[in-house]
């Protein structure tokens, strides 16, 4: 190898990671966030206030936690449609656990997350070992989770309220002025970035997303990796549900329904390929913020629900047309 190319490599290697890997899609997503804020500030000066921004980040953190799990699954080239009822299950079970005295209050969060792990395991076994298309397994497990919760609650919203610890986690502020939910999202994000860029598991996820065949022939335990990814997604969805229950101070039927499509949209708007193998976590963060801001602006503008849905869909399409397109055929 020639001298020049070697020195070029080392210069690139010295750049901070996020610049080296800066993906045009991620930059566009952040650009769109700024545009939205500017647009919002034309409407009301509140949009650039710290309070408003923190409030938005807090709302975004629930979606952010769910989207983190969704992203890992999408990176594999799969999808997790069980998000709605995994979230609800996590929330309901956490609240239910809190009903069992002081032990239950301590165990509330782990119990909720473990329920997510269990459903994630079901998804993972179906996809990785039985090789059923993920779209259909997760669809079925969503129905199963819904069925379980309907049987458990008798079809009504449960009366258990979220335990204080859960409420504190979602609405409290360990650092004054900075909601805990944002801290939780930050922690999850840091863990995700580490997982995806620094660990063998992360490499395997990208590798499988690009070519599962090549990954298998490289001696990677592809089935274990796929299963783990679904477990992770289940756990994070359930955790998101628990947080949401803390925010609303109780669990409710169908509370997760509004999170499935936004979580997929957030991951894709952040530049992750829905076919797997390509995408950076920072993009997902951008996508989550983007979608939350969009929803917020539409509601601040007091647009009726119908108009909100239409604008929401149209904006996603326009942004995808800007940078989410497949290369042309020739």
């Amino acid at each position: 190898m020639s001298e020049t190319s070697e020195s070029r490599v080392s210069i690139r290697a010295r750049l901070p990671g996020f610049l080296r890997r800066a993906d045009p899609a991620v930059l566009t997503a952040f650009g769109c966030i700024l545009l939205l804020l500017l647009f919002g500030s034309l409407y009301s000066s509140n949009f650039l206030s710290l309070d408003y921004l923190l409030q938005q980040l807090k709302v975004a953190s629930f979606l952010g936690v769910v989207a983190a799990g969704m992203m890992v699954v999408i990176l594999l080239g799969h999808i997790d449609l069980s998000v709605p009822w995994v979230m609800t299950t996590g929330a309901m079970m956490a609240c239910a656990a809190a009903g069992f005295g002081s032990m239950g209050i301590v165990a509330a969060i782990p119990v909720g997350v473990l329920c997510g792990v269990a459903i994630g395991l079901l998804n993972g076994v179906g996809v990785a070992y039985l090789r059923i298309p993920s779209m259909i397994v997760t669809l079925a497990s969503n129905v199963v989770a819904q069925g379980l919760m309907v049987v458990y609650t008798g079809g009504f919203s449960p009366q258990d309220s979220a335990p204080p610890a859960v409420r504190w986690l979602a609405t409290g502020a360990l650092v004054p002025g900075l909601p805990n939910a944002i801290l939780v999202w930050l922690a999850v994000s840091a863990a995700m970035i580490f997982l995806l860029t620094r660990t063998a598991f992360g490499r395997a996820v990208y590798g499988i997303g690009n070519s599962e065949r090549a990954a298998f022939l490289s001696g990677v335990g592809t089935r274990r990796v796929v299963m783990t990814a679904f477990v992770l997604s289940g756990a994070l969805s359930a955790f998101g549900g628990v947080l949401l229950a803390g925010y609303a101070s109780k669990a409710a039927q169908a509370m997760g329904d509004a999170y499935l499509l936004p979580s997929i949209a957030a991951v894709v708007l952040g530049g992750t390929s829905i076919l797997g193998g390509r995408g950076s976590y920072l993009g997902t963060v951008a996508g989550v913020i983007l979608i939350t801001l969009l929803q917020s602006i539409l509601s601040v503008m007091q647009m009726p629900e119908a108009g909100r849905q239409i604008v929401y869909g149209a904006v996603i399409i326009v942004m995808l047309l800007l940078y989410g397109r497949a290369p042309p055929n020739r």
Partner: protein
Amino acid sequence: MSAAGISAPLFRMEGVSRRYGGVRALENAHLEVVPGRIHAILGENGAGKSTLIKIMAGVVAPDEGRMLLDGREVTFRSPAEAAAAGIACVFQELSLIPDLSVADNIVISNPPRRFGMIDRRAQRALAQEALLRAGADDIHPRAAVKDLPLSRRQMVEIAKALALKPRALILDEATSALTAGDVAKVFAVLRRLRDEGLAILYISHRMQEIAELADTCTVFRNGRNVATFAAGSRSNSEIVEMMIGREYSHVFPPKGKPAAAPGKPPVLECRNLGWTDRLRDVSLAVGEGEVVGLGGLEGQGQRLLLLALFGVLRGVTGSVLVDGRPAAISSPAEARERPFSMALIPEDRKTEGLMLPMTVRENLSFAALDHVARGGIIDRRKEEQLIDDMVRLLEIKTAGLDVPVAALSGGNQQKVVLAKWLMRRPRIILLNDPTRGIDVGTKQELYRLLRRLAETGAAIIFYSTDYDELVGCCDRVLVLYDGRVIRELAGDEINERALIASALNVGDGQAETAA
């Protein structure tokens, strides 16, 4: 036979160029195709042959230059337009639709219609006629293409091109997947078509095929046509020289003397290996420092044998021993670990060896992540160091470690596949036709590397479709036929004649053949 055309050219290409990104695939190319002749196109990989025919067939558009059909300028915006103009192409990557039936595929570009709907009876008649013309009437028109073996699919592909009733027929490595019997049939068909007045453009790597079939040859190098001459007017070594543009000499490194360690069991041994009806009773042993070749026609079980040893196949019968101890390997994940330390260089580097969109770095360390990671966390410095060693050892030419591996040339991609396994320091190396589709220079580097690995004590099984390679590289060669080992050649016995004779299972008069 003279090189001058007897009749006026059917098709002319003048000054055609095409770039992909910064790479010039074809530059100022000229070509003249005459009816009633078989015109061979020769060249190394990356010489521009594929681009040339893709332009002719309307798959890609040229950047510059013009094309004339019957003296009139034409442009093809799609394969359909080229087909309508009478140019049909049998592609190297198959263009058949797996879920449709044979008949559906044969008439796909212009199905017969009645009242706007596809007329299935007429379609079937057309398909049967085309299959007959291609000499493949053993294929049922209603069979789904995905259920056919590769060689049958290739015949369907030829029938599909013929169904277009073309005036010019392009065959791009069309015989690469065929059995010897099919090749003979196809050649007969091609000669007949030539005599019927078709212009035939024939692209192949196999020199013998070209010598047997072609009337005219054109050699391409670095995207330009460098010479056109009548077939038979140049010797093979002259042609090879034109292709590579330098002396073609000293290809293979000298074979070493494998140190026969007395009393030491072979590193890898298998006894009476079987798998469905595709592998039967295969026994072989590879010692330390030995290169054992697998020969025979394509698709006789060589690839499956390597997969079976690597733990990819289920339900393998017989026994595998490593260092004389029974080894039950049920996945590549087990095969690569100690005490086996196996590596498999798979058949198709683009889908099985590499993740094309991922960076060179990520690809290189992918199989050895457990070596560079502690507790699942990647030690970047260690990774960097191992990668640097490998890039230097194999002289991988890349613009950096963070470019997608897809941007590398075929030869360098193959080096990356090798390097990613060598990083694990394997003791048993299984190679599945590693030099397919790479340039002559890189091939030679690989031969030297292979020998060096053997000298450091690796046990190597080397499957190649190129007989010269087996002759030049291997200490012993096992020839497979229909899933069985029918001949073992060692030392001076390994020559092209013996290899071909045993591959065809005809016997060469010197040795008896099994089965």
